[in-house]
């Protein structure tokens, strides 16, 4: 049964996530989140999504590098002194109903392992003939749904330009500089 290993991976992911959330030390929290990402990459591999496994792995590495750069040499200890009731309560009250409702809704969906695949059948049957790409996923993202990929590349471009704009040293010109420019 293929489902058991995915379930074990999912339980590990939940455990890793709980460690990441509750750990006092920010560095260990980040490492735990990296672990969750690694398990997810494995899960993608088991779910027959090798493209996603690669992308998830490398994105995870880059994400961890970026996050570590943010925290290293800064506060590494999460400053939460003691247990505070209100935020914990609010978190549980808001998160629990969504999860329970979503679980109930998921029961109504087609059973796990039996997707409907009405559109996807076309992709599998005609993908190679119509796009010439043996990798059907690449055929979808860069030919059938290439417009989405343009959007995705633009999101990344936006984030890069945005990050460079946010990270510039001086945001506003001084008054004198401004009047000189006019």
């Amino acid at each position, binding site marked *: 049964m293929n489902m058991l290993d995915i379930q074990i991976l999912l339980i590990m992911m939940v455990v890793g996530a709980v460690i990441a959330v509750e750990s006092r030390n*920010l560095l260990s929290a980040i490492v735990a989140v990296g672990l969750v990402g690694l398990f997810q990459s494995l899960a993608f591999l088991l779910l027959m999504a090798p493209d996603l496994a690669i992308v998830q792995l490398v994105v995870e590495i880059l994400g961890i590098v970026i996050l570590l750069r943010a925290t290293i040499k800064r506060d590494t200890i999460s400053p939460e002194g003691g247990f505070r009731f209100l935020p914990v309560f609010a978190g549980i009250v808001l998160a629990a109903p969504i999860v329970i409702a979503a679980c109930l809704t998921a029961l109504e969906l087609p059973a796990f392992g039996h997707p409907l695949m009405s559109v*996807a059948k076309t992709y599998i049957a005609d993908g190679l003939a119509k796009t010439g790409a043996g990798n059907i996923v690449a055929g979808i993202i860069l030919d059938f749904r290439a417009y989405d990929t343009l959007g995705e590349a633009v999101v990344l471009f936006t984030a890069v330009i945005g990050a460079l704009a946010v990270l510039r040293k001086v945001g506003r010109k001084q008054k004198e500089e401004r009047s000189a420019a006019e």
Partner: protein
Amino acid sequence: MIYSLCLILFGVGLYCVIAKRNIVKIIIGLAIMEYAVNLLFVLFGYRLNGSAPILDKIQETKNIVDPLPQALVLTAIVIGLATTALLVSVAIRIYEKYGTFDISKIKKLRG
């Protein structure tokens, strides 16, 4: 069952974003939420004993998993990375200005 585990992961992330008071923890919570959603999407497309959607010259398998959710999740992962990069940049600037990652100490704005 398998969907509920994935949704619990989502719940853990959401809880982290709402309950924690540290900027890095909030970013971690958002990342966990993204993982859960991506995994859920791929789970919806999985077919029992299916093979990967990559054709090669020799074999001609009929039982292939749904490739469309994979294509969508690829997009979603990259969007998640973009958001994280921007969040971290803003977080670095906030640290530079306030000297802390604790949002209960960052309170210039009312309400």
